[in-house]
């Protein structure tokens, strides 16, 4: 991505970047302006919607700490490797977005372990829950105790960073029989209010665990009430929607809204419909690192696209 010349990343360039295969997600918002925000500070601050400054950020997803099945007997080790990769980046990202399934079974010990690992990067981290993070008896109590401070409802929130508006959504709670992921009317109403004061030229990044577009309904890979959320987003010139959950890179562009699912750091899942179930996909051990990864995002001044680069752990 650093090979992309200067700030002339247009939509085509962006899509080319996006087509890149890699692991892990890092969002780079151009130029290395290293301002950082904490969630509390971001939520407390008066919204400022100013000029976009270049910076980068990182997306990491589906670490599934606690997973030890044949598809990856040591998901902890590959998460550590992913974070090491973040530390080694030539341009330090301003912060990390973790798009859920931090843990495999919502255990306190798993959350604590994941937290220790990701904090070693020395960057602010913003979380959204995956369904694996809310399967404790309290239906998310453990997650919210750790990450819910200062958030709304069941963990949703927004913040601004150098002219870009970031929105964190929870679409894994209160799921309905026969349905897919779900946002719920409270969260959709909040989103509408949250966006109301923003100029349409404000770049928007939405992040949530499960895809906000229907990738494959038979496996529940979509959000049944996402259309209502997207309605509030359509007036913006640049909307980037980031998710995890399906452990593979898939994109879709719909008008000014682009959708991007990221790789996991734990194990891959089959392409839509390519297996009897969406369960963990066992690949030959020597291939595992080539199907895990992170993602960087680069925000470029004066341009409405955000360049995403997926990098594998190989």
């Amino acid at each position: 991505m650093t090979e992309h010349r200067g700030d002339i990343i247009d939509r085509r360039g962006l899509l080319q970047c996006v087509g890149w295969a890699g692991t892990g997600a890092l969002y780079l918002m151009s130029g290395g302006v290293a301002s950082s925000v904490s969630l509390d500070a971001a939520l407390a601050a008066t919204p400022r919607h100013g000029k976009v400054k270049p910076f980068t950020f990182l997306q990491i997803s589906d670490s599934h700490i606690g997973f030890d099945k044949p598809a990856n007997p040591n998901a902890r080790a590959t998460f550590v490797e992913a974070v090491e990769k973040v530390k080694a980046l030539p341009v330090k990202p301003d912060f990390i977005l973790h798009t859920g399934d931090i843990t495999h079974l919502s255990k306190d010990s798993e959350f604590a372990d994941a937290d220790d690992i990701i904090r070693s990067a020395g960057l602010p981290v913003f979380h959204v829950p995956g369904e694996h993070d809310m399967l404790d008896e309290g239906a998310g109590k453990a997650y919210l105790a750790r990450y819910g401070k200062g958030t709304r409802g069941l963990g949703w929130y927004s913040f601004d960073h150098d002219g870009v508006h970031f929105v964190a959504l929870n679409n894994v709670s209160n799921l309905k029989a026969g349905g897919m992921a779900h946002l719920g009317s409270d969260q959709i109403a909040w989103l509408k209010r949250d966006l109301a004061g923003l100029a349409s030229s404000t770049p928007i990044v939405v992040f949530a665990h499960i895809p906000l577009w229907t990738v494959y309904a038979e496996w529940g890979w979509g959000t049944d009430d996402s259309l209502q959320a997207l309605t509030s987003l359509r007036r913006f010139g640049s909307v980037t929607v980031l998710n995890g959950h399906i452990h593979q890179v898939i994109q879709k562009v719909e008008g000014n809204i682009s959708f991007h699912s990221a790789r996991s750091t734990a194990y891959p899942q089959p392409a839509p419909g390519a297996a009897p179930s969406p369960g963990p996909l066992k690949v030959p051990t020597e291939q595992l690192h080539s199907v895990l990864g992170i993602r960087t995002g680069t925000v470029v001044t004066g341009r409405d696209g955000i360049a995403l680069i997926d990098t594998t752990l190989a």
Partner: protein
Amino acid sequence: MLHRCLKSLSLRTVFPAMAIMLSLGAPAYFSLQAAAVASPAKARMLTVQIKNFAFVPAVVTVTPGTTVTWINTDEDPHTVTATNKSFHSAAIDTSGRYTFTFRKAGDFAYFCSLHPHMTGKVIVKA
């Protein structure tokens, strides 16, 4: 303990299954299930597999008092959650089980609250 179990369940049809299970060191629980399978007319226990993100079989019909056991054979955790909230499991991890006894007649639709496209039904009638 095992000796007493054997004594109380020393039915000719059940014994061979018991013997196999015991030789493998399986708990007596399994042998009781084997007993139930061996005499379906008196079946009061039934097993539903959770496999490939599906409940198998998805629809079962049982008599009141039947205990249904769900066994998860997937690498992903699942739940058994009644649509009307009358029963629900905790997350069932790989090889984990959840058991519920249906005492009243009726149709009980359920789903996995983590993967809600997974649905099933227990029909209880006398």
